[in-house]
């Protein structure tokens, strides 16, 4: 029942997004322009893996901030949140919104990451670990951002509040993703990347489980 509801929310959000293109446009535009700005300013980063990893995740993080915060605010502003509350269990809403935000971020990364690699000239030491870190990091950002977006959706000044609430929540995941990506971009050994992957898995697990337990109180009243 929970997963059927979540699938319905995901399908509904995807259909609305295909027609309005609000979130994907905001996120993609930010990702592309910031990647181009980085490459113009710094040129080829080449073998400086720490700088490349930090810049890549800064681009992904701010892209996420530009689009994912709208997931609940839009429902409140268009007066459709009541419809969701009436028909869909809170847990289904969270899982559906999380899945939609994650897929939005992945779709943007499919465009932005190859562009970043190409323009900055950074070398990917181990593609499998790199892609795994991107996926886990994106899931971590989506999980935290979805929870923060729900918390601020009914507040005045949502934009600033979303950035303020989500940063402390997302900072640990961001730091781990940057460290892991730096290791994955560099030459072997990739031992530290493996520990970062584990940390991101734990982070995603904790944030998603805690959000599922607490979301009802944020969402319903």
């Amino acid at each position, binding site marked *: *029942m929970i997963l*059927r*509801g979540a*699938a*319905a*929310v995901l*399908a*509904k959000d995807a*259909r*609305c997004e295909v*027609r*309005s293109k609000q979130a994907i446009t905001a996120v993609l535009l930010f990702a592309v322009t910031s990647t181009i700005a980085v490459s113009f300013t710094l040129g080829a980063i080449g073998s400086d893996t720490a700088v490349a990893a930090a810049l890549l995740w800064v681009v992904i993080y701010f892209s996420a901030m530009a689009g994912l915060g709208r997931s609940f605010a839009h429902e409140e502003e*268009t*007066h*459709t949140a*009541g*419809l969701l*509350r*009436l*028909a*869909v*269990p809170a847990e*289904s809403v969270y899982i559906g919104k999380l899945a939609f935000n994650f897929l939005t971020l992945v779709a943007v990364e499919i465009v932005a990451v190859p562009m970043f690699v190409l323009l900055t000239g950074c070398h990917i030491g181990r593609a499998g670990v790199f892609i795994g870190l991107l996926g886990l990091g994106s899931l971590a950002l989506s999980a935290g951002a979805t929870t923060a977006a729900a918390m601020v959706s009914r507040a005045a000044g949502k934009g600033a509040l979303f950035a303020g609430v989500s940063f402390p929540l997302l900072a640990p995941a961001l730091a781990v993703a940057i460290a892991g990506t730096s290791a994955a971009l560099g030459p072997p050994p990739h031992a530290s990347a493996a520990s970062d992957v584990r940390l991101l898995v734990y982070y995603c697990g904790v944030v998603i489980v805690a959000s599922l337990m607490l979301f009802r109180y944020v969402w319903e*009243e």
Partner: protein
Amino acid sequence: MAGVRISNLTQRFDRREVFHGLNFAFDGSCLAITGPNGSGKSTLLRILAGLLVPTAGEARLLIDGDEIERNQARALIGLAAPDVQLYAELSVKENIAFLLRARGLSDIPSRVNAALERVDLSERGGDAVAELSSGLQQRAAIAAAIAHEPSVLLLDEPSSNLDESGIRMLHGIVEWQRARGLAVIATNDPDEAALAAGCLDLGAAR
């Protein structure tokens, strides 16, 4: 027997008190909630629907003598209200199908068609909600509220924006709902209030 029980209900928004210590009991199949603008009709419907937790006291809906619990509300309650809008980007059919799917119901196409037929909106069911006139949007909202055949139908100013045939359709919906459970109508229209077996006048209650 269906009904409504309100005991010691208080609702405050910041410093403004909408109602204080409201008590009311009703047994029957159709209740009208009346009162001037700002008297709390919509607020009371939101509390009954479970969308708003009151400051104090409680308001409960009864079906067959049993109170509807919060976890049953999704299946048993339908609400059409100005502050509960459909998704403008989706068609009426897509909106209703989403709500049925989210409630875990099966046989979705036939339920969607039945709801649209009931509000005389079958021909425009494929249109995006944003493309409909306000009257047709009101019909779509009523269709969305009745598609899962709820035991309790809550209607907030349901005839607003409706033309004559729409008002006839609405009266038919209220009669249909009365036979199935409970209809609660928040209204200032004497004709609509006359459909009900009982009336809670929030203006007099203040």
